[in-house]
C-alpha cells in the first residue's frame, strides 16, 4: 500500500513539471510581442520596455528559465507587474474565500448527488429515476452564471433569505460565512451534482446486477443495507474518479462564481489580472490551480485503497 502511494506521488512530479514548462513557454512562444500586448494599445515604448524588463524578457531565454525554475522551487511564483507584490502574497490574501467555497460546493454536491443517484438506480425506469436523470441533463447544460443569478433573484432579492452578494470571513462568525457562501455553493455545485448523480446511478445499476447483491438479498438483508452497505461501496470507484474529474470543472467554475457573487477570492484575483493583463499573476494561479488538481487526483487514487481491498496489495 505504501508502495502504491509512493508510486502515485512520484507520478505527480512530471505532470507538475510539464505544467511549469508549459506556462513558461506560453509567454515565449506566443506570436507577437507579449510585452506590447500586456502594456495595452496606448502604451509608450518606454512602458513596453519596462514590462519587458519586469518579465525578464530582455535576458537570454535559458537564463530566464533558470531563474524561473529556481524561484518556483523556492515557492516564489513571481511578482505582479502592476502592484509589485509577490504573487504568493496576493494568493494567500485571497485564499480563504475560495477554499471555503470549494469545500462547501464539494460537500453540497456530494451530499445531494449520491443519494439522488442511488435513488435513481434503485428506482430505475420509474418516474423518480426520470426526474433525477432529467435534472442531471439540465444541470450539464445550464451555465453557472445563469443558475447563480436565478438563485440570487429568488432567494436573495425576492425571498430575502440570504445575502445578495459578498463574502463574510470566517473570523467574523461561521454562520455568516455559511450564509454568504450558500447560494454560490449551490450555483457552482449544480453541474457537479449532475455529473456525480449520473455516474452514481450508472455505477449502482451495474453493481446491483451483480451476483453478490442477490446473495445479500438471499441472506435477508433489507433494501437500505443492500444499497448502502453492499452496493455503494462497490460502486464507489467510478464515483470518486468522477469527483476528481469534476474538480477541474469546479476550479473553472470558482472563477465565474466569484464574479457573479462578488466574492474576493482567487477567482476575482484572476479576473482583476485579466483586466490588467497581469500575466505573472495568471501564471502563478495556473500553477496553483494545477497543483490543487493534481493533489486532489492523488488523494482520489489513494482513496481507492479504502474502497477496494484488491488494490491494497
Amino acid at each position, binding site marked *: 500500500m505504501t508502495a502504491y502511494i509512493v508510486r502515485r506521488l512520484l507520478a505527480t512530479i512530471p505532470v507538475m513539471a510539464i505544467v511549469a514548462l508549459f506556462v513558461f513557454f506560453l509567454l515565449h512562444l506566443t506570436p507577437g510581442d507579449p510585452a506590447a500586448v500586456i502594456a495595452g494599445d496606448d502604451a509608450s515604448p518606454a512602458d513596453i520596455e519596462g514590462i519587458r524588463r519586469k518579465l525578464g524578457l530582455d535576458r537570454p531565454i535559458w537564463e530566464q528559465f533558470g531563474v524561473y525554475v529556481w524561484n518556483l522551487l523556492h515557492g516564489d511564483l513571481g511578482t505582479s507587474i502592476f502592484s509589485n507584490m509577490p504573487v504568493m502574497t496576493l494568493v494567500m490574501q485571497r485564499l480563504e474565500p475560495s477554499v471555503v467555497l470549494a469545500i462547501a460546493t464539494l460537500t453540497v454536491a456530494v451530499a445531494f448527488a449520491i443519494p439522488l443517484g442511488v435513488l435513481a438506480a434503485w428506482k430505475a425506469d420509474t418516474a423518480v429515476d426520470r426526474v433525477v436523470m432529467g435534472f442531471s441533463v439540465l444541470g450539464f447544460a445550464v451555465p453557472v452564471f445563469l443558475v447563480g443569478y436565478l438563485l440570487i433573484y429568488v432567494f436573495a432579492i425576492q425571498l430575502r433569505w440570504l445575502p445578495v452578494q459578498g463574502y463574510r470571513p470566517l473570523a467574523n462568525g461561521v454562520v455568516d460565512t455559511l450564509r454568504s457562501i450558500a447560494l454560490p455553493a449551490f450555483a457552482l455545485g449544480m453541474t457537479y451534482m449532475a455529473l456525480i448523480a449520473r455516474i452514481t446511478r450508472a455505477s449502482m445499476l451495474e453493481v446491483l446486477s*451483480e*451476483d*453478490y447483491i*442477490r*446473495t*445479500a*438479498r*438471499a*441472506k*435477508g*438483508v*433489507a433494501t437500505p443495507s443492500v444499497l448502502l*452497505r*453492499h452496493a455503494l*461501496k*462497490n460502486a464507489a470507484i467510478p464515483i470518486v474518479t468522477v469527483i476528481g474529474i469534476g474538480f477541474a470543472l469546479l476550479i473553472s467554475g470558482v472563477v465565474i462564481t466569484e464574479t457573479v457573487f462578488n466574492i474576493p477570492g482567487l477567482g476575482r484575483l484572476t479576473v482583476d489580472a485579466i483586466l490588467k493583463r497581469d500575466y505573472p499573476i495568471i501564471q502563478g494561479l495556473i500553477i496553483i490551480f494545477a497543483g490543487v488538481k493534481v493533489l486532489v487526483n492523488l488523494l482520489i487514487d489513494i482513496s481507492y485503497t479504502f*474502497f*477496494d*481491498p*484488491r488494490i491494497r496489495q
Partner: protein
Amino acid sequence: MKSNVSTAATAPIATNGDTILSVQDLRTHFYTRDGVVRAVDGVTFDLARGETLCIVGESGCGKSVTALSILGLIPPKIGEIVSGSIRFDGTELTTESEREMRSIRGNRISMIFQEPMTSLNPVLTVGEQISESLRIHQRLDRRAAWDRAIEMLALVRIADPKRRAGEYPHQLSGGMRQRVMIAMALACNPQVLVADEPTTALDVTIQAQILNLMLELKDRLGTAIVLITHDLGVVAETAQRVIVMYAGRMVEEAPVRELLNNPKHPYTRGLIGSIPRRKSGGARGRTRGRLQEISGLVPSLREPIPGCAFAPRCSFATPRCITEQPPFEAHGPRHFAACWEVARIEATSSDQLVSSPT
C-alpha cells in the same frame, strides 16, 4: 392459464409424514420485450424434513427459477409468480409480505449459489459477510456474531478460521469461497437449504469435497436440501429423491436408485445415457453429465406448449404427444412420469434409445 389442473391433481402428495416445504403447481413467468417466458410452468413437490431432493435438468429448464421463487427473489417487474402455492412449515410464502420474507431468507431457508467467485461481496471481509445474517436474524452483537462466524468457518473446515475471517474473498481459493458460502447459508441453522449448482464452477477434485461437506453438515444440523444440478453424477452421490425438469415442467420423479435404474421418461433416459457408465469403462468419449448430446433444441418458452414439451426431440413421439399434455402420474411405487408412451418405452432397452440419430 390453468390448462393442466389435472396434472396438479394427480401430483404426488407428501411422501413420508413430516413435510417442511410444499410446492404446488408453481408457475413463474418473466416478461421480456419479445413476450412472456414461462420459465416455471407447473411444478409440484414436497420436501420432508432432513431430506435431500435433487432437481435435474438442462440449463434454462426452470430449476434455478424454481429456487428463486421459493426464496421470493424473482426480480419484481421483470418476472413474477403467477400462480401456485409454496408452503413452508405451515406458512404460505407466495402471499407473504417482503418484510416477512426477509425474516425467513437466510434464516430458515438459505441459498447457495453457483458462482463462488462472484457471489461473495468483494469489498467486505468473509467474517463480516457471515456475521451479517447472524446479526440480522439472531440479533447478535458485533462481537458475538464475529465469534460465531469464526466457529462457522471452522465447521466448514477452513484452516486458521480466525485469520481467514478478516480476509477478503479475493484472497481465498474457489473451493474456500464455496465453503464460506456454505458457512454463510448454514449460520442461522436453516430448515431448508437450496443449493443451486453449488459445485459446477469448481474443480472436479474439490466438487466431491464440497458435496461431502454439505451432506455431512446436513446430517449434523438436520437441514433439508434442495440440490439443483445438471450433473447426474452429483445426483447419484447425494440425492434421496430426484425430480427431472424439462422446459419449465416436471417430467419425472422417483427415488434416486429407482430413477437411475428404471427411468420411464425418454428425456430422463437421454440424460442417463449421456453420462459414462460406471461399470463399463468403455464409453470414453462422453463427457460427464453434458446433456447436449440429446439431439434437437430446448423449445422456446415464449409460446404455450399444448402437448409434451419434449415431443419434438423424442423418437417415440406420436401426434397425441404434440397436441395433448401428458399427465404427471404414478408408474410404480413413488415413481411418477409425464409421458403417454411409458409402456412402449419400457419395452425398449435403454441402449437403443440413447443414440438417436441426427
